[in-house]
């Protein structure tokens, strides 16, 4: 265990001696598969880098992201302001770093809300079938049939614009596909012999769902979540575009572009910088998700 080689042997051994070793061995093998996809590795590296940059924002930022200098607005990149200044003379580079915290934080929050909800609804509907399925799926249908952005907009407007309501709004519109996915997975899993075997041990339906069905759904869900992260960023940006996203002075990437897009013909670098950030983050999440799918969910590819 002390050397990398020993660790590797410990991980890939065909005869693990504990559950923990078996689980880590499985993860390591997945990692080995994942590692062979350069695009996915690129995506992962970028995501990790972004997270590190955002966590280290206070160390890396050159300015207070909220500090206004009205006399120096929309300045071009310079030694003082590496990426220029925005419409209120704030340092774009520093705002970008802090904005990543908000944006990525929103993404994480949405995912943490959506995935368990969708999983629960889908698994319950799929496993029990019958009335529970019909009721839950009708509710899912209502939310699916709702124009998504409108639902989010209405929700935000009904509460008040801001990060929390944007998160809630995006979550509100994002869960139905997860429920559908989890339901579909559950329906296939439910009829397998291994679930039949568990049923024959006399286990309760809840135990079966929780311990045996959900693990089969989580993998495709993880993939879907990773691929969705970019949509979440983009939805947040669209909300920002329509004035309903994170609100100024909060430096959220989507809101940054949304407020700066009016300078696209004049001070084009102001909207371009957060746009590149969003592009890079989205692409990284997408590539990561694609790579994860190849590994975790070979049948979907």
């Amino acid at each position, binding site marked *: 265990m002390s050397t990398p080689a020993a660790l590797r042997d410990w991980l*890939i051994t065909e005869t693990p001696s504990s559950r923990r070793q078996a689980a880590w061995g499985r993860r390591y*093998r997945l990692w*080995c*598969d994942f590692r*062979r996809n350069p695009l996915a590795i690129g995506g992962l590296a970028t995501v990790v880098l972004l997270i590190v940059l955002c966590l280290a924002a206070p160390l890396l930022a050159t300015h207070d992201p909220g500090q206004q200098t009205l006399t120096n607005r929309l300045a071009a990149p310079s030694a003082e302001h590496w990426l220029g200044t925005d419409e209120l003379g704030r340092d774009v580079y520093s705002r970008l770093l802090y904005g990543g915290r908000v944006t990525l934080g929103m993404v994480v929050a949405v995912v943490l809300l959506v995935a368990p909800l969708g999983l629960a609804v889908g698994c319950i509907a799929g496993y029990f079938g019958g009335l529970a399925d019909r009721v839950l799926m009708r509710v899912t249908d209502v939310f699916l049939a709702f124009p998504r952005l409108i639902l989010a907009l209405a929700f935000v407007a009904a509460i008040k614009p801001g990060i929390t309501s944007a998160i809630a709004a995006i979550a509100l519109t994002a869960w139905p596909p997860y429920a559908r996915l989890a339901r579909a997975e559950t329906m296939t899993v439910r009829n397998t012999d291994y679930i039949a075997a568990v049923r024959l041990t006399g286990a309760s339906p809840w135990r079966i769902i929780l311990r045996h069905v959900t693990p089969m759904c989580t993998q495709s869900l993880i993939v879907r979540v990773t691929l969705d992260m970019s949509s979440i960023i983009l939805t947040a940006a669209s909300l920002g575009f329509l004035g309903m996203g994170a609100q100024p002075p909060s430096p959220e990437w989507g809101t940054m572009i949304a407020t700066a897009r009016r300078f696209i013909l004049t001070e084009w670098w102001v909207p371009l910088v957060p746009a590149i950030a969003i592009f890079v983050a989205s692409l990284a999440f997408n590539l990561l998700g694609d790579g994860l799918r190849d590994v975790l969910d070979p049948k979907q590819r």
Partner: protein
Amino acid sequence: MTAVVIDNLSIAFPTARGISHAVRGVSLTIGTEKLGIVGESGSGKSLTARSILRLLPASAQVTADRLSFDGIDVLRASEAEMRAIRGKRAGLILQDPKYSLNPVMTAGAQIAEAWRTHRKGSRRAALQAAEHLLEQVQIRDPQRVAGAYPHELSGGMGQRVMIAMMLAPDPELLIADEPTSALDATVQAEILRLMEDLVSRRGMGLILISHDLPLVSHFCDRVAVMYAGRVVEELRAADLRRAGHAYTRGLLDCLPTLSDPKVRLNVMTRDPAWLT
């Protein structure tokens, strides 16, 4: 006289933990005869047979001193040359018609497609030929079957369609990869008898791949027994009782039988020396 010559064929696949050798140094020569290739799952019998038509997965690494079909070097032939062999000169029948027939095309259309690809006839002629072929595989109402989708056919019916399709261009060699293992015992016998009959009547060669040694011996002239990627023994089907290799004998001995009840079955002890 068509001859398939396989000399020192090896097939390997790259995996996460190095190269896995599926077939190692197999040599076989097949003429106009009925050859059975027998072995347990993973013994490489299927890969060996498919390599003749170069129908292996893209990741397979194939090497051979010689792999030829009627003098054509299969390893170096162009895709067009291979297409001239596939179907036209050698047919392939797979295990389960549920998967090996295209589920969204009618049986008739699939047979007609095979016929047209190699005979260049009109659509109508092809469909007529298809119905005629279905008659040849002893289907009583060929018109209904021709219009049916694979999932509407029973397993035996589907396998007959498969045979008809492969016979359409009148090939010289038929490779049957476990053609009956998905079928019930009664149907299995019918299909094998049908194949044997067609092959003999048309003077074709047959390669029958199976895990069922007694079964193969009933329908083939010669049997090659494979174990872990190698041919461990080649013998005439009639000589099976006198098989020399312990593996071959083991396969026969471990079967429960109706005629000879035992309290405990014989269990094969695998000699590591078989692998070398």
